């Protein structure tokens, strides 16, 4: 059996001890997958944060629309997600979105299908409408699962972001909007040129709080069926006997999760410091209590 090993001395694990054993143990192929899954978490954050912001912007704009049904939709979106445990939404949306997509494809691809889709306790669509196709490679399944997870996160966090942005839009002094109207701007111009540029200062504290919450929600990826850090920590930490691995050990899951705990603590701490700096930069020269305090401190 050939093994791909990073350190040459790892070829014979049975003879190793102490640090050398540990260095070999921590560079096995499975551990590499574990390290890569940290990248999965960062990727999720990198994609979800802007998408959720977009959803939030849409929701907030809808909520303050003058068209009643649109406004109800926006307000309803914000209210429902806030009243129910988030994890219920995660579990719900993953199945609901999957079935929704398959149903749409079913309608489009198999128009002459005559059996009902819900047969008792089964959800049956024609083979061509399956997502991903049953002939697809493993990686397609993984990418599709990750895509569903991102969409679910974006929907749930979009509602939180909508709530923050809706508040921020209302915090912009009303005189500003009235002045814009007095200068003859249309509602659309007022919205894009006066309201949107000014709302970010008011939104930043809420959005940075949301970012911290989003970081702390990433382990829920595990519940959505993605092979993330929680999955690998459970997998790698479980006790292994010499029959199945070259590196037998006892139940080390506690230590793996301690590692994850430290990772998250470091991540939130760094974010906190960066966001503090950003807030200081943005409040410079603003006519708010924070800006006033900065001005006095400098004088």
């Amino acid at each position, binding site marked *: 059996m050939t093994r791909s090993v990073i350190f040459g001395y790892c070829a014979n694990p049975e003879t190793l001890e102490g640090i050398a054993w540990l260095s070999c143990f921590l560079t096995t192929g499975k551990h590499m997958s574990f390290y890569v899954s940290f990248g999965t978490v960062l990727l999720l954050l990198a994609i979800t944060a802007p998408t959720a912001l977009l959803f939030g912007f849409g929701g907030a704009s809808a909520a303050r629309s003058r068209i009643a049904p649109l406004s109800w939709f926006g307000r309803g979106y914000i209210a429902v997600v806030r009243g129910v*445990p988030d994890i219920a939404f995660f*579990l719900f949306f993953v199945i609901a979105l999957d079935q929704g997509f398959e149903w749409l494809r079913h309608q489009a691809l198999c128009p002459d299908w005559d059996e009902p889709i819900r047969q008792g*306790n089964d959800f049956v669509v024609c083979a061509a409408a399956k997502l991903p196709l049953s002939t697809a490679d493993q990686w397609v399944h993984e990418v599709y699962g990750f895509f569903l997870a991102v969409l679910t996160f974006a929907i749930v966090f979009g509602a939180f972001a909508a709530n923050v942005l809706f508040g921020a839009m209302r915090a912009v002094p009303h005189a500003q909007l009235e002045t814009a109207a007095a200068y003859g701007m249309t509602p659309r111009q007022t919205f894009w040129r006066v309201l949107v540029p000014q709302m970010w200062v008011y939104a930043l504290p809420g959005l940075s709080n949301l970012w911290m919450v989003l*970081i702390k929600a990433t382990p829920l990826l595990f519940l959505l069926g993605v092979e993330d850090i*929680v999955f690998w920590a459970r997998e790698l930490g479980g006790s292994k006997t010499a029959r199945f691995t070259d590196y037998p050990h006892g139940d080390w899951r506690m230590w793996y*999760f301690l590692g994850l705990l430290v990772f998250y*603590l470091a991540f939130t701490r760094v974010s906190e410091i960066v966001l503090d700096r950003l807030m200081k930069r943005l409040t410079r020269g603003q006519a708010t209590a924070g800006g006033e305090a900065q001005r006095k401190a400098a004088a």
Partner: protein
Amino acid sequence: MSCWQTIADYGLRSLGYGERLLPRGDFTLCQQFTLIGSGMIWNIYFGVLALLAGFFLATALALGKASRVWLLRKASEWFIFVFRGSPLFIQFFFAYFLFVSLKSAVPALAPFTAAWLGALVVLFLNTAAYTGEIFYGALLSIPKGDTEAADAYGFSGWNKFRKITWPTMLRLAWPAYTNEAIFLFHATTLVFFSGFPALRQRGDALYYANYFADKTFNPFIPYPILAGYFILLTLAVIGVYGVVNARLNRHLPRNDRPKLKIRPKLIR
């Protein structure tokens, strides 16, 4: 089978009473309402006990963080940082595996590997940290005039804390603390998805909702039922906390009394 029969069979299923097997086919709405409602017992149990115990530790933490003693201050700061800076989900996993390891060393600690005690401890410490931070913020924003007036009237030490500082701190912190309470009840749904096993399928509301969604492959019925139960629970929490809020503010002129504004931020 009538709905009353179903309620008799499954009403206390989450505690292990009644029918042993969960329903397997031909799921009725009544069954889903009953079992998910039965699971709510656990959510209420975890939430109420963790909040009650957490309240006292949170007061201690807030005082510790505001303390002039270096050791107390640092200890409180670190406690709050660790529990607020990491996901509750990871805390559950870590605690569960920690308790499992401890069990092999000290058999007397075995109950901690069960959800009713182990998860309760984690929730208790977690809510204490979040609430401690809220109380600390409130402690710092007690109007200077209030404490000066207390000094002028000859209050000091325990008496001053008991009669002036503490009630004012609670009064200022109460709206935020209400949110924290709602938020904690929502967090109790994580328990059975994070290592702690649901022995003999005795789970919480989300556990049963997930069971039905898996079996029927139809998420559109059990999750809205769960959502309905949680909205009722949230309203009940707001009601109870509103009563306390009214009592804490009863000395203020009617127009100055702060209303409870509910802005839960859901994930921890």
